[in-house]
């Protein structure tokens, strides 16, 4: 398993390098004066301009600049925000857990509901339930996430007043940051009602973000389960006199999940993109919103770092899914 990991990393190496090259190129491709773009300083006098050029290493040949950039990356230096003058890496680390919390909540929801609905649809094939689930899945898949979020806000926050519109927890609470995950921190704090407030704030964004993955997972589970139900070993399981739930779950679902795993990696990508939109709508203080704000403010080091890290996360998740697939699918794991 470890050797498999190394092998996969080896094949990924060119892509990883390529991504860093692309991130490096990103800033330099932006039209305009590089010093202005990278430092945010405008209308400098020639002497100051030249001094900054030298300080930024912009007078060096490109490949040296790239190596310098790569070196900083490996040290965890992602540059400095033009707006706050703080290290980008630090800001990122502070905001990242919020996005993780949101993404994980969304993914859990998507898996729980998507798998269940897909399973039910497959078992009740052709029935109204099946058609209903598939119809919902198609609609969910065609939905503009940001509009869906606004509609849900309209219903649940504005009309019904059940959920708040923005933030991670009620402003009346003062929660010290321990893990960065609001649910955890709220539990740990001694503020009464903080946890409930945190959950209330998380629910709607998680539902919105999880909708598209949920639809995709439901469809995938259904088609995979339908194929499994046709297999001979399902008949054997029934011929053994096993309880129906056992046949469906232990024998059927266990095999049906294998192809669904392959879809998970892509869904995380959808979550990353969707996070940008969801965080914007719900003013959720994560890296998605941070990225969009940075673009608006021309805070290019932040944009560069945000894009780079997103790519690395996506590659990492796909690698993990690849490995997970190898573990779950005995035909790949054991070998003959």
């Amino acid at each position, binding site marked *: 398993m470890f050797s498999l990991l190394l092998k996969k990393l080896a094949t990924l190496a060119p892509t990883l390098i390529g991504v860093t090259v692309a991130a490096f190129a990103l800033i330099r491709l932006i039209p305009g004066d590089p010093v202005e773009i990278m430092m945010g300083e405008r209308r400098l006098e020639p002497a100051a301009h030249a001094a900054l050029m030298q300080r930024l290493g912009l007078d060096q040949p490109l490949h040296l600049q790239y190596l310098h950039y790569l070196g900083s990356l490996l040290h965890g230096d992602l540059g400095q925000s033009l707006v706050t003058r703080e290290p980008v890496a630090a800001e990122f680390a502070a905001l990242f857990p919020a996005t993780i919390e949101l993404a994980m909540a969304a993914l859990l929801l998507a898996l729980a509901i998507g798998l269940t609905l897909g399973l039910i649809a497959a078992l009740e094939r052709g029935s109204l339930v099946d058609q209903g689930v598939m119809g919902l899945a198609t609609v969910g898949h*065609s939905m503009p996430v940001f509009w869906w979020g606004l*509609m849900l806000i309209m219903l649940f926050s504005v009309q019904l007043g059940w959920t708040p519109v923005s933030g991670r927890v009620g402003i009346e609470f003062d929660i010290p940051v321990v893990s960065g995950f609001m649910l955890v921190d709220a539990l740990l704090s001694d503020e009464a009602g903080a946890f409930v407030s945190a959950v209330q704030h998380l629910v709607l964004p998680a539902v919105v973000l999880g909708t598209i993955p949920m639809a995709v997972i439901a469809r995938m589970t259904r088609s995979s389960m339908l194929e499994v139900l046709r297999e001979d070993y399902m008949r054997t399981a029934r011929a053994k006199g096993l309880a129906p739930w056992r046949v469906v779950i232990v024998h059927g679902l266990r095999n049906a999940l294998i192809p669904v795993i392959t879809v998970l990696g892509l869904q995380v990508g959808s979550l990353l993109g969707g996070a940008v939109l969801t965080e914007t709508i719900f003013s959720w203080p994560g890296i998605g919103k941070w990225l*969009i704000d940075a673009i608006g403010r021309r805070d290019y080091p932040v944009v560069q770092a945000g894009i780079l890290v997103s*790519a690395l996360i996506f*590659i990492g998740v796909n690698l993990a899914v690849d490995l997970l697939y190898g573990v779950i699918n005995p035909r790949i794991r054991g070998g003959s």
Partner: protein
Amino acid sequence: MTNPPKRPPAASPRGGGARVPMPAAETSPSPAGEFAQAFAANLGALVAFIVFMLIALAALLAPWATPHEPVQQFRDHLLQPPLWQPGGTARFPLGTDELGRDILARLLHGGRVSLGIGALSVLLALLPGVALGLIAAFFQRIAAPMIMRLMDILLALPGLLLAIAVITILGPGLVNTVVAIAVGALPGYVRLTRAAALAELQRDYVTASRVAGAGTLRLMLSAVLPNCLAPLIVQATLSFSSAILETAALGFLGLGVPPPTPEWGGMLSAARDYIERAPWVVTMPGLTILVTVLSINLTGDGLRDALDPKLRQAA
């Protein structure tokens, strides 16, 4: 393995007895006819296709379909409700937005923008994508690794983020949006074409053609490509719908088509502040996006199902 049973009786099994009737030979319809039959049989897909055609038609005829200009502001009619709500008039059937602009007009003109960007981005991704895919399939050793690595890098960023990255470099705008979306869709076409072409290349008729001396280019275009068409068509349909979603997303984030050009996502972005006061400003554009994308997706599903037996033959 064992002793056979004793000699059978001498009864002859041949001849005599009533004949079993043979089924009459059926004539099969042409491939195009088969496809049309299969597609039409899928009621949902057919309805979806018609709906989409209507939307496309409405968008195309936008300048003549409404009396109002999409950017025309009616100061006396700010946030007017739609026709069926109290305070609405037939003059602005879907109401007006916060600047007094007719929503119906903006939706129709916005349709031109969205559908146009969608179609263009599909073309811009499909043509180079197919070309690169074919090259990668035919020149496995030289070109393929480089091309596929490049695609891997593009795929390292999920769709929307990649578009955002491209927009960051190029700046917002209509053309830049087309480019940004096309860049994200490109790897999909390359991979698809390459896989389909590789499968075709295994087939005997290709080997035969090569032996007969057919040139590579000719082989590519006349023999291999037509058989890759089915999956490509399905892919194009689905990337068309996701292009529309992405355009709207970029517009919503302020990174796509800039105002005052009407664009569905941009309309939603401006409408955020009016959820309570004027919900129709939010529901209308979103519903339009949903219905358009849904109709395209259902059509694509229908296409895929109708082409399926052919997909299996082609792949």
